């Protein structure tokens, strides 16, 4: 373990410099400020996958890696819809998931918003309508904001959240 800490100290903090341009840095600062103002310091997101390819989930997981480190901005993915301000909804809203997505939305306390993530929930992906798909989501839930992409990159998701906070 000592070896690990030596390497860790030598490496320093990755989040600040590697691979991210200054523009993204300013977005992060802006995002931090908006969250402080509008959500008293933290924004709680409940991620719900309603039938994706798992790409959107992988990119949301990537938001926690040392390069993006979303949590330091006060944005958290929470384990229960009852703790959430926002439902981040990915996937094609399948026939089988539709009742469960609605249940999760019902469980969220007011005020609450739905943000659709990726091209699938708005039926703009390569997948075509079948009997097993109930997307677009707008027919079932009110959508406050949409983050497009197939899948949206971690940077797209951060930008999207900022845009939502600006507009909202």
């Amino acid at each position, binding site marked *: *373990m000592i*070896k*690990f800490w030596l*390497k*860790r100290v030598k490496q320093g903090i*990755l989040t600040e410099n590697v*691979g991210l341009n200054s523009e993204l840095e300013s977005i992060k600062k802006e995002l931090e400020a908006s969250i402080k103002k509008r959500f008293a310091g933290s924004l709680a997101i409940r*991620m*719900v*996958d*309603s*039938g*994706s*390819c*798992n*790409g959107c*989930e*992988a*990119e*949301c*997981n*990537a938001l*926690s*890696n*040392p*390069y993006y480190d979303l949590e330091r901005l006060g944005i958290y*993915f929470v*384990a*229960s*819809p009852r703790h959430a301000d926002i439902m981040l909804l990915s*996937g*094609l809203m*399948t*026939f*089988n*998931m*539709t*009742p*469960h997505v609605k249940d*999760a939305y019902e469980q969220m306390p007011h005020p609450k918003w739905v943000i659709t993530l990726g091209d699938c929930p708005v039926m703009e*992906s*390569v*997948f*075509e*309508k*079948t*009997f*097993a*798909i109930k997307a677009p989501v707008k027919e079932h839930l009110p959508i406050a904001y949409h983050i497009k992409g*197939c*899948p949206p*990159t971690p940077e797209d998701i951060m930008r999207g959240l900022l845009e939502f906070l600006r507009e909202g």
Partner: protein
Amino acid sequence: MRLIARYVKDLTSHFELVTVYEDEITRETISKENPSFKTLMREHPSCIWFERKIKDDFGIKIENAFDNRRLIHQERFPQNISPMRKDFTQKEIDFADYAPYKYEAIEGDGVFQVAVGPIHAGIIEPGHFHFSQAGEDMLHQEVRHFYKYRAIEKMLEGKTLFEAKKIVSRISANESIAYQIALRDIIVEASKMALPNSLRVEHAILLELERLIHHFTDLGFIPNDAGFASALAYCSKLSEDTRRVMKKLTNHRFGFDSIGFEKLGFDTLYLKEFMENLEKEISFFEDWIMDIPSLWDRFDTTGILSKENALKYDAVGVVARASGVAVDRRENEFYKSYGFELCLEKCGDVGARFKLRVAEVKNSIAMIKNFLEAYKKNSMLLKESESRDGEYFSFVESSLGEIFMSIEIKNNTIERFFVRDPSFVNWQVLHLMMPNNIIADFPLINKSCDLSYAGNDL
């Protein structure tokens, strides 16, 4: 003999039941009048899902089955419709009355049920796990999936192979390159093209890169589920680094729509340097992580799958190899000539699956370095021609295990698309790992297998 898949084709006048084994393919004709077939559930437990899926898809009765419950059609799905039949053309169905699903459960004094999902606590795909508990001890678990069922098989019918590419690329993001290569092999065969070795090498580099990304993700998340978060920080960095290389090579972080018949052209020097660095990183990681006793206390003897059960349940991929079953589609002359070595473990526990991934990462890095030695940066564009009618099969070893794809082509379009994700068989193995473990270890055991929901549910 290992059973690979069992599925049905609607041939208008009758049904055909196809059973694919390791060494042979058998076919049975099923009449459309009172259609039924004899079950193989007892000989091959992996058939439990294959056959229940056939029943839901085509409305064919399973004779002598001990499990007749609906599989992909859930509580609110209308009764008595068979969507995979050719005469079913509806694009919209309504929710029917709630018909309860009877879970496999152990009952008795003090035994209780724990239901988990479909929406889980983390950022993860939807699926349901149903536990029978005696206190902390798991007595039994039933895995129930198909919440992500998008009817991709039906969606692809009537399309040309080229029109299918974008959808096949997005069946399961973690295995996108593998799915695209499976389709590539079928296109090559159906249109009588010859695949030049240098293009094959380029695609093989991408497939191993995809494996690295996925294995790094797991090597971080498995220790994280045992409360060792610094491994996640370490490996999610490596995973992100490798994903950025994927983006550089294919212009997409997951390599969607990147397997074609035009050479992409890689910067070999840059790649070689990156691989050499990864080699150092994984050695450091292995050296460090193998020496954390509290972590191995959680890994060792947790979630054991015996070799006997792995064979009985026709398991594939990392799950099978960690239990000592030698099954890997890369075991052929092409891969061996670039340094492929079959990695195996014996114990079949969480620790074995973890160590196997470390070994496979090292082998993939070595192979990519060898591929790069042989890589020629010439440009190449193959002309895609029409597909000949017929039935085509392909196999690819994804980061999860063997993908089996079968496509029947009629008049240049897809008549029947069938694909079996490695997870479809491995999900049915998962419950065998639970007895003698406590429920707190379930997330750890599940993550050590890291199976796909999207590829399974289709």
